Each structure stands twice: as structure tokens, then as C-alpha cells.
């Protein structure tokens, strides 16, 4: 039922980035066949049906260095973000985890004086390739921020539709996409009767789910979350965490968190950063119960940080 819409939508973000800058020039990026995604979208209406998995691409980072002016914030980080898994990045303040996150969809370029070197591959595409449009990168790799940031001039409906409207994406049934996205962010039941009210009228937790809905409405493949719960109360946090577990059926998820319990609850693998270096990246249970590096152990047991 959603086929025509989905098709026009999903071929959009990939086109510029699969251009001829890498070795696998022109190779179509293997990705979920349309029917699978549609099946997921369709299944959203019966919210319990979550077995259907949409294969999302992973991200592979090699030799990433990042700088703020003359400060060397990230030192030679290489890390794999596994498709359809949740990867948590933990570490003390200033350890560089947020910087790594921003380098994954080139949002660090919005900070004056920031630059990065190294390779970040989304599947087979180098997102730093010379002919890659940064706009396409961000459409494929969405981001949720620390503080909920709905657009204050827009209604709930327009906030969710913002990504499509702002980018002039045509041929999408906005109403349907908004409903799907709000259901996908577990917010539909709470707001379906007041879609025309301003988005900033919602509670903090609802606003953050609204921002998640806004992010998934443009149908990215990867979702980056920068401490998405740090401004929320425990109940709202729990809702978001449940949501993250749902979302990995459709997206590859990378989450930065200060909260180690949160990492333990939601992440499949956890990466520990310290002073701009990746110390350890392993399955979450290993990082918390049997870390291979003594610094990781000290951090997760609360000896510093």
C-alpha cells in the first residue's frame, strides 16, 4: 500500500553519493529491496509486528582524526558500526565520543574551525568523497540531538513533515508518512488528535520522540543519537530506550551516552573512548563484565570519569 511513495522517496538520498569517487565506482549500493521496507512501514499500523527487519547499511571508520582549530580531538580512531545493531559510545566528558558521532554525518563541519581526516564508509560509499553532497550524507544518516529541538514555528504535523517539506521532496503522501513516523516513534497515540498544535507544546520526552519521528520521516538508513535522554526524566528515558530497541529493526543506530546503565540496556556493542582515542569496542556484556583494558574497567566500575 505504500509502494509508490516509498520508491520515490528512497532512491533520493543515495543517488549523488554512489558517484565515481571510490574504487567500487558506480556500483549500486546493496540495500533493502523496496518490498521489505514497505512491509515494515505497512506493519507499523499493527504496532506489535516487529519481526520484519529492514537491512540497513553499517558504517566503517578507518583512521579518523578530528581537530578543533589546533586541538587534536580524535586520534586515529577505527571502528565498525554493525548494521541493524545499536552501538553505544561511552566515555568521560571531552573524550571525543560526540565528535566521532558528528563526523559520521559530517555535522562537525557546522562547527567553525572543525575538520576531520580519515575514511568513513557508509556501506561502500565514502561519505567524505570529493563528489559526495553533504546534504545526501545527512539524509542517509540522520541525527537526534541532546536537547529536544522541534521547530518552534511549526505544528506537530509540520515538524514531522519538515524534512520532506524543507527538501521539497515530492510524491510522498505526507499524511501517511507523518502517521507512520509518529507511530514509529511511539508518539502517534498521544498526539493524533492535536497534530495542528505547536510542537513545542509537548513535554520534553514527547518533544524528543517528535524529533525522532522527524528524523525517521526522511527514511534514513542510520540514526545517530547524541545523548538523547540526558535532558529527560527517567520515565521518558525508558520510553526512548524501548523505542531504540524497536528502531534497530529498520536502522543502524549509534548512540552517545553518559549513562552506563543506558548503554548496558540498549546497546549491542559498546565503545569506550578516552582522551580522543578508542580504547575498547566489544559486545556490551563484555565491556561491562569482562573488559580487556584496565582503563575501561576503571571507568565502568566508577573509579574515574
Amino acid at each position, binding site marked *: 500500500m505504500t509502494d509508490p511513495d516509498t520508491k520515490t522517496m528512497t532512491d533520493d538520498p543515495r543517488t549523488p553519493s554512489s558517484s565515481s569517487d571510490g574504487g567500487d565506482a558506480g556500483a549500486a549500493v546493496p540495500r533493502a529491496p523496496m518490498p521489505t521496507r514497505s512491509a515494515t512501514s505497512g506493519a507499523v499500523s499493527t504496532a506489535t509486528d516487529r519481526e520484519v527487519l529492514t537491512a540497513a547499511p553499517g558504517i566503517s571508520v578507518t583512521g579518523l582524526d578530528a581537530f578543533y582549530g589546533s586541538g587534536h580531538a580524535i586520534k586515529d580512531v577505527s571502528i565498525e558500526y554493525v548494521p541493524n545493531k545499536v552501538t553505544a559510545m561511552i566515555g568521560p566528558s571531552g573524550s571525543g565520543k560526540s565528535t566521532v558521532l558528528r563526523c559520521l554525518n559530517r555535522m562537525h563541519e*557546522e562547527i567553525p574551525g572543525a575538520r576531520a581526516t580519515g575514511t568513513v564508509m557508509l556501506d561502500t560509499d565514502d561519505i567524505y568523497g570529493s563528489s559526495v553532497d553533504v546534504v545526501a550524507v545527512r539524509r542517509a544518516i540522520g541525527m537526534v540531538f541532546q536537547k529536544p529541538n522541534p521547530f518552534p514555528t511549526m505544528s506537530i504535523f509540520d515538524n514531522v513533515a519538515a524534512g520532506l517539506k*524543507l527538501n521539497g521532496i515530492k510524491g510522498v503522501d505526507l499524511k501517511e508518512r507523518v502517521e507512520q513516523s509518529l507511530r514509529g516513534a511511539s508518539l502517534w497515540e498521544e498526539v493524533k488528535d492535536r497534530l495542528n498544535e505547536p510542537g513545542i507544546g509537548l513535554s520534553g520526552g514527547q518533544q524528543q520522540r517528535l524529533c525522532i519521528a522527524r528524523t525517521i520521516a526522511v527514511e534514513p538508513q542510520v540514526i545517530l543519537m547524541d545523548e538523547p535522554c540526558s535532558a529527560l526524566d527517567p520515565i521518558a528515558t525508558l520510553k526512548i530506550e524501548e523505542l531504540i530497541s524497536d528502531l534497530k529493526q529498520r536502522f543502524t543506530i549509534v548512540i552517545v551516552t553518559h549513562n552506563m546503565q543506558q548503554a548496558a540496556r540498549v546497546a549491542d556493542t559498546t565503545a569506550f573512548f578516552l582522551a580522543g582515542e578508542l580504547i575498547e569496542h566489544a559486545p556490551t556484556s563484555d565491556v561491562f563484565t569482562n573488559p580487556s583494558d584496565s582503563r575501561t574497567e576503571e571507568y565502568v566500575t566508577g573509579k574515574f570519569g
Partner: protein
Amino acid sequence: MTALAQLTPRRRTTDRVMRVVLAIGTAIALIPLIAVIYYLLSKGLGAWSIDLFTKDPTGNFLGDQGGIKSALLGTIEMVALASAIAIPFGWGVALYLVEYGRKGRFASTVRYFVDVMTGVPSIVFGLFVYATLVLSGWGGSSFSGWKGSVALALLMLPVVTRSAEVVLLLVPDALREAALALGTPRWRVTLRVVLPTALPGLITGSLLAVARAAGETAPLLFTAAAVNGTTFNLGERMNSLPVQIYNDVQSPSDALVQRAWGSALALVTLILLTTLVARLASRRSRLS
């Protein structure tokens, strides 16, 4: 015995005295304001009549001296044209400074000159336009309404730019990032997210600049000059309220001085209305 220090009588007295001093200071500052409004109303209201607003000044010293229709309309026309020039340019400069130039050297230089321009006396803008446009007889005539508008626009430009810049800086970066992270190109972020969010504030700032321009005499004295008849042709000499007041109040005729008060009240009312609209616009602002 408690450990908490007692409020000494001395502290109490100092507190009272300082409060009274501040209250008196505020009252003194209000006296001139109230006096101006009182004089305007008591002298100006008496001069208001239907004829004042429906007749052009005749230029006669004795007999029928006419009203201020041409001055009122001239002010509105010239200020409207000046706004049409200054507001788009001012917003454009502010957008450039905040969204693109940021802390760069060029942007800092522009910002500095805008600040300098804000402090330039209005008569200098009048002189500048007089020297460049009026003396050269640009556009076929020496004095004309549109040249007055140019002088007013120059006066407004730095004010509009500065106020717009402040408002645009108030738009949280989180909103820009949110839009950028959705894969929106920068120009669309500016146009569809930053501008709508800042719009009420932009309007407020610009209307305050409009109100200021409406009351300026000096830039119009030797650009639009003065004339009795009403004209809607901005290529001709044009009357304006401030210049009308300036001329009337110098005249030895009591009736003309009386008309000056009426004009002054009309001008203040016009500015008050503009400011009121600005207030209403700022109330709709969603920026703190």
C-alpha cells in the same frame, strides 16, 4: 541565641533610603516625558480639525492657511519607499553576517562599519544625498521625494541591520542543526527555518527604524525640500511632517505655530501606531 546574623537598624535604614532615592530618580526621568505628552495633547488637540487633515497648506501668511494633508501623505510615501529600500537590504546584510560571514574578517569589518553608520548624525545623510543626487540633478529634477527616501533609507539601514542581526543571533543553533541534520541545504535552512523563527523580531526591529525615520527632519530638508501641494509622484518635491513643523514653528503667525503643534501630534500619533504594531509583532515571538 541564634547563629543567624541579625538585621541591623543601619541596614534597614540604608535599604529604605536607597529605595526612595531610586524612586525619585525614576520620577525625575519621567517628568520630561510626561511634560512633552501633556504639551502635545493640550496644544495639538486644539489644532486638530477635519480641515487640518483634508487640506493642503496654502502658503498664505494671512487668511486661509490650509492644513497638512500634503505633509502627512508625503511622510507616509517617503517613509514607505525608504523602508522598501532599507529593510530588504538590512535583512540581507544581517543574514549574511549571522549565517555565512559569522566571525570572518570581512563580516567583522562590515559589522564595524554598520556600528559607525548607526552613530552618524542624520544631517550627514541628508548632505550626502544633497551632494550626490540633488546637486547633480539626477533623474531630471533637483529636489524630489525619492531622494528624500534614499536619505532616510541610508539612515535606517544600519538600524535595521543591527536589530535584525541581534534577532537572528537569538535563533538557537539547535534549530539550524536540526534542519541541517535532516539533509536540508543551508539556503533552505536560512529561508524556511531561521527566517520564520526570527520574523516577529525582525518586524519589530524594522518598524522601530521606520518610526525613527518618520520623525527625521534633517535628511529631508535639502533632499525632498518642501512644497505645498500633495503629490503622489516621488520624482517631484515632496512635503513631510517634520519639515512642515520646522517651517511653521518659525513663522510669526500664531495660527501657523498652532498648526505646527497639530502636525507634531499627528506625527507622534503616526509613530505611536507604528510602535504599537511593532509591539504586537514582538509579542508573537517564540524566541525568549
